[in-house]
């Protein structure tokens, strides 16, 4: 999902294997099995800590980079109401990033380190945000499909074994439903509009459908981290399970809009009580993850510029605070 890059070797935990205390590990697993939450100061295996740091920070980076494709349309939203809604949504995404960075910080990594990892290209973020938003309909498609896929992944994360992550996800999920519904509302208006508007909606669906399915990450056979993450209850469902659920939920929604999914192999399998769908282009997925998607360079350049442009503000705020603290002390 927002953490597709987890399959990359992490370096840190592999370079310094920690000899874990077997008894502590056993008690830790027993707590997880009993559905107890693990809290920041509790003992945890180093691999659990590193896995969470990577997953939560990648999730946070995805929220932050995710502001860019939609921010692109704030100045061109068709009405003042749409513009207000889009600003609120993009602000929420920034907020989600902030909740998640806070949760990751409880594991002992600093905010500055995480930002460094993002800006240096070391950390990953979701492949979906490396696709361009070419028309207003893309804003509808993102809310409906991208946020819809995100909800599918995030609802089980509300029960994640790590307390601060689970609590952040509860907050995120409460807000995410607005995102999905406003997106579907945009699609609905276009689908009921002029021929040109219907065409726009279909075109956006054509471009966002497959990348949305890729958001769930590699298929189960190719995903290296699923088993351990499931045992630790960081993950409750596999990538393919969530992807299937998303397809089953979304196909009827597209039918209601009178739009066609860009997948000739998509069909209902009555015997299995689920949709069958075509094979994802995994080469494209890997390519985008590696940095060669349509917008990877643009997104990173924008993030770096925003960080640099904000430097004087961060420094001035600290100087201002120090000056006032000194005056108060005098």
């Amino acid at each position, binding site marked *: 999902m927002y953490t597709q890059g987890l399959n990359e070797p992490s370096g840190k935990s592999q370079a310094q294997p920690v000899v874990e205390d077997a008894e502590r590990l056993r008690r830790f697993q027993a707590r997880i099995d009993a559905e107890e939450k693990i809290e920041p100061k509790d*003992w945890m295996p180093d691999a659990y800590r590193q896995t969470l740091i990577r997953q939560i920070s990648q999730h946070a980076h995805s929220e932050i980079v995710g502001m860019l494709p939609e921010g692109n349309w704030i100045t061109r939203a068709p009405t003042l109401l749409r513009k207000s809604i889009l600003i*609120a949504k993009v*602000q929420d995404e920034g907020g989600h990033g902030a909740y998640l960075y806070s949760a990751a910080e409880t594991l002992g990594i600093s905010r500055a380190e995480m930002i460094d990892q993002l800006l240096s290209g070391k950390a990953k973020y979701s492949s979906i945000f490396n696709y361009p938003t070419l028309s207003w309909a893309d804003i509808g498609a993102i809310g409906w499909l991208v946020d819809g896929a995100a909800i599918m992944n995030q609802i089980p994360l509300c029960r994640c074994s790590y307390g601060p992550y689970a609590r952040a996800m509860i907050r995120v999920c409460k807000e995410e439903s607005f995102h999905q519904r406003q997106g579907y509302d945009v699609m609905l208006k276009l689908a009921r509009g002029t021929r040109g508007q219907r065409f726009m909606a279909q075109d956006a669906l054509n471009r966002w459908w497959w990348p949305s399915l890729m958001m769930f990450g590699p298929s189960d056979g190719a995903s290296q981290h699923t088993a351990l993450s499931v045992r630790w209850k960081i993950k409750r469902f596999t990538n393919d399970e969530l992807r299937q659920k998303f397809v089953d939920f979304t196909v009827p929604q597209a039918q209601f809009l009178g739009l066609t999914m860009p997948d000739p192999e998509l069909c209902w399998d009555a015997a299995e009580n689920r949709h069958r769908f075509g094979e994802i282009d995994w080469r494209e997925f890997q390519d985008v993850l590696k940095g060669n998607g349509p917008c990877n360079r643009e997104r990173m350049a924008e993030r770096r510029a925003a960080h640099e442009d904000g430097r004087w503000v961060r420094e001035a705020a600290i100087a201002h605070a120090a000056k006032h*603290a000194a005056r108060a002390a005098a």
Partner: protein
Amino acid sequence: MSENRDWPLYEIFIRARGGLDHKHVGSVHAADARMAIEHARDLYTRRQEGISVWVVRSVDIVASDPAESDALFEPARDKVYRHPTFYDIPNEVETL
């Protein structure tokens, strides 16, 4: 390594409605306490989730050690007589 490059961390406590306690909701980075309140407003009350905010520097919070929680909370464990349900009162006795 880069801890000092961040603005200080503040823990945020929000009172959702009059009559309720302030409850811990998360944390923000801010240059000073006033900015922490404004950031907390933007981050945790975008949908009217609060009417009052407390901010506390995270470094000023002293917490008990989970590894010692058995010893710390042990004294309360064998004092079941502190609970009203410990006492069997005959049914005939009313308003007790």
